[in-house]
């Protein structure tokens, strides 16, 4: 019964989405207020219906109903409850439902937090999101129905893949989808602007918080996936340039470029066409990622069970959505206007250079990911493109971008001069060069890559310190007062940039200084690595909810003092008879000690791999800082529209977009004037 209710809800949701995707958009074109107003209730109805379907599927999993085929393929009676719920998105059909539900969440959020938007723009935005929803709902109902019954019903399920039976499964996909799908808001804003012909600073200001929020989710989602792979896969790797990892990284790169581009469009009215293209691009890459994972076109650890019919459906969907939006772009972009003038050396030009670098990086990742397919399609043989390629190509592209990160925030808008910038940054430059040369020598090992990584990380640290000191210099009473006078968005930028530096430092140190040993250990044997002693205490058998395990014990000491105990496990998940390793990790900011159990050997010994990974946690700490910076930026005062302004705006007519932007200035006026005085 419940699955049927879920199925029916999806059908109703499709009907609502069809209405949402057509009526308000036509209404906006015709100026029909009633039709436009339909958008908000339709968005809410759609959310309610899709959420119902999702809850029905979750209930079906929780109640162990194996008469539904999808549940039988992805669950099992012995599977603990939290993983039964996470299994909802463990397979293709359910993950689509998650996609659709998250899209409906963003849609209803936009419908709630959009009172300050002109009615026609809101109608178009919600309409575009509704059209995307139509695509996903149709896809599910036609070729990927999660509620399809299995006749005769299975006695028990085939279990969720043991690799996915982990807290990471509860966090990583929803967070990632919130990011991917969140870029649909920026996309919808861009399409609405192209359709309506109004693309100005106000448009940029309205879409910024939505874009940044999606970016924050995507950052956390990718970080979560990387960390999960690190502790789960047992060999200490955290990024593999796998096709699906790339599919999430490309929208992130373009999304980062988009955030920076929106900043310029809002402040200076420049880069409009470029910003719109980036907004279309970020979401297009999200959709492309969806295609790559489900079509069978590329091999990947993440690939769902593939079916060419499904691949064809998504491909057609891609052509309609992306092709349509790019065609609209080609048609309307020439009319959006150019924006303010700025000189060759200015903050605008640095930001533009940054965008070019990020876009080229994203395109390079796309090239590498799809190249094997290109060659195969042309009959030119089969190759593999893996980490050696991406590492070689990505570092030279990102190096100038990281270098610019130190200069951009210090350069003035509109016009800056190189000598002045060089003067201001000479101390930061000196510090970073010195650190890059000296630190590795102190740690015992120098290579050009280590030097480069350290230089870039400390360059960003040092220039950020300089930037903060310059900004906080002033004549106000206390440091705290001066800090409060600087808008949160600015702090957000600084913290996010420092996050990148922290990340870069972590990557550089771990890659440059990590070490490992592979040893055979009998109980009582001691291994040595990086100054630590690892004493093997043997292996004990234990039983978990749906697995049996051999749990090893390694006592770690340094100079005779015991520091920690590592407990790597080798598990056998009984339903699928699948072996898995759980690494034993002792994390700390300074380094991780990581052990994984190999195979039992003939004489009762075990093969054990022990890793020393210095500063590896900085990789994810950096990502968290980036996300924090983004959140700070969103919580900036100017996005919190005060009640007074709202009533003022309602009195103003629909078409006076420009006037609205001006009326809004009083809220921002204080910060604007403060900025000017602080900069002097």
């Amino acid at each position, binding site marked *: 019964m419940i699955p049927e209710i879920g199925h029916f809800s999806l059908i109703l949701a499709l009907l609502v989405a069809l209405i949402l995707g057509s009526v308000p958009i036509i209404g906006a074109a015709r100026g029909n207020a009633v039709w436009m107003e339909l958008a908000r209730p339709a968005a809410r109805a759609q959310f309610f219906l899709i959420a119902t379907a999702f809850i029905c599927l979750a209930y079906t999993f929780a109640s162990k109903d194996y008469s539904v085929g999808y549940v039988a393929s992805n669950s099992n009676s012995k599977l603990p409850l939290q993983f039964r719920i996470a299994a909802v998105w463990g397979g293709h059909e359910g993950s689509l439902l998650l996609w659709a539900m998250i899209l409906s969440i963003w849609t209803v959020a936009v419908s709630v937090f959009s009172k300050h938007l002109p009615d026609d723009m809101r109608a178009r935005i919600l309409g575009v999101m509704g059209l995307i929803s139509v695509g996903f709902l149709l896809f599910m109902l036609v070729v990927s129905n999660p509620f399809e019954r299995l006749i005769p019903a299975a006695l028990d399920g085939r279990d969720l893949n043991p690799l996915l039976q982990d807290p990471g499964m509860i966090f990583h996909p929803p967070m990632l989808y919130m990011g991917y799908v969140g870029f649909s808001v920026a996309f919808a804003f861009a399409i609405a602007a192209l359709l309506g012909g109004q693309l100005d600073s106000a448009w940029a200001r309205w879409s910024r918080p939505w874009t940044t929020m999606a970016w924050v989710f995507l950052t956390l989602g990718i970080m979560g996936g990387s960390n999960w792979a690190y502790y789960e*896969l047992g*060999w200490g*790797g955290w990024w*593999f340039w*796998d096709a699906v990892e790339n599919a999430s990284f490309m929208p992130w790169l373009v999304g980062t470029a988009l955030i920076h581009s929106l900043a310029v469009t809002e402040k200076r009215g420049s880069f409009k066409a470029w910003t719109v293209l980036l907004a279309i691009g970020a979401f297009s890459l999200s959709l492309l990622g969806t295609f790559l994972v489900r079509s069978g076109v590329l*091999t990947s*650890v993440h690939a769902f069970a593939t079916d060419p019919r499904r691949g064809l459906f998504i491909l057609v969907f891609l052509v309609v959505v992306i092709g349509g939006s790019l065609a609209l772009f080609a048609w309307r972009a020439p009319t959006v206007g*150019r924006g*303010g*003038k*700025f*000189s*060759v050396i200015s903050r605008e*030009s640095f930001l*533009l*250079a940054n965008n*070019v*670098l990020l*876009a*080229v990086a994203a*395109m*390079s990742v796309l*090239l*590498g990911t799809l*190249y094997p397919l290109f*060659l195969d399609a042309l009959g*030119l*043989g*089969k*190759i*593999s*493109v*893996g980490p*050696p*390629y991406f590492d070689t*190509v990505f570092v030279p*592209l990102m190096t100038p971008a990281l270098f610019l990160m130190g200069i951009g925030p210090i350069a003035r808008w509109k016009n800056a001069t190189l000598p002045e910038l060089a003067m201001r940054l000479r101390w930061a430059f000196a510090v970073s060069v010195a650190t890059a040369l000296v630190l590795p020598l102190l740690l015992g090992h120098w290579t050009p890559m280590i030097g480069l990584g350290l230089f870039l990380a400390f360059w960003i640290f040092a220039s950020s310190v300089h930037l903060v000191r310059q900004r906080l210099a002033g004549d106000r009473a206390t440091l705290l007062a001066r800090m409060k006078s600087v808008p949160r968005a600015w702090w957000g930028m600084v913290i996010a940039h420092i996050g990148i530096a922290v990340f870069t430092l972590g990557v550089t140190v771990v890659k440059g200084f990590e070490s490992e*040993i*592979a*040893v*055979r*250990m*009998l109980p*009582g*044997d*001691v*291994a040595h690595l990086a100054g630590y002693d*690892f*004493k093997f205490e043997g292996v004990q058998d234990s039983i978990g909810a749906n697995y049996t395990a051999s749990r090893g014990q390694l006592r770690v000491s340094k100079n005779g003092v015991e520091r920690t105990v590592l407990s790597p496990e080798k598990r056998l998940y009984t339903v699928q008879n699948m*072996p898995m390793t759980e690494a034993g990790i002792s994390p700390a900011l300074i380094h991780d000690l990581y052990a994984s159990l*190999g195979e039992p050997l003939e004489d009762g010994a075990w*093969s*054990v791999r022990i890793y020393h990974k210095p500063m590896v946690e900085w990789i994810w700490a950096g990502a968290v800082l980036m996300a924090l910076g983004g959140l700070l930026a969103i919580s900036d005062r100017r996005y919190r529209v005060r009640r*007074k302004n709202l009533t*003022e705006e309602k009195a103003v007519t629909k078409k006076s977009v420009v006037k609205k932007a*001006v*009326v809004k200035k*009083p*809220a921002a*006026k204080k910060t604007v004037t403060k900025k000017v005085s602080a900069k002097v």
Partner: protein
Amino acid sequence: MKLNLLVRFMIGFFLLQSVLASAEEARPLQANVVVEAQVQRLSEELRCLVCQNQTIADSHAELAQDLKQEIREMAAKGMTDQAIIDYLVARYGDFVRYRPPMKSSTYLLWLGPFVLLIFGAIGLVMMLRRREKMPADKPISQTEARKVRELLDKE
């Protein structure tokens, strides 16, 4: 008395030996460290043909273990990295290399990002030059300035 002491001493001595003997140094899994370093380095660049999403260094598949053993033997014989890779490519094709070879069909792959960057840089410079030639922002007239002030002061 003396015999008792001697016996006790000997028992203690042997016990001590066994305790000391059990705290042994863990031996490396593979004896030859230099060869193993080469094996590891190569394994990280080669694709497991069974799992296809892992290097043969990380894969638990039997074929991966067999290939690693072959590589080990070749490395022990003193074969260079390139020779070992050529050996495997002769049997499995370029698919087995995660670092794509540089040949006519992969020029676009290896040079593509660089070319894109150059295009991007040229496009950037051209766009910036064009901006500089744009007319400067027109200053607003007195009446317009008054209007702006009025609107700003409304709140």
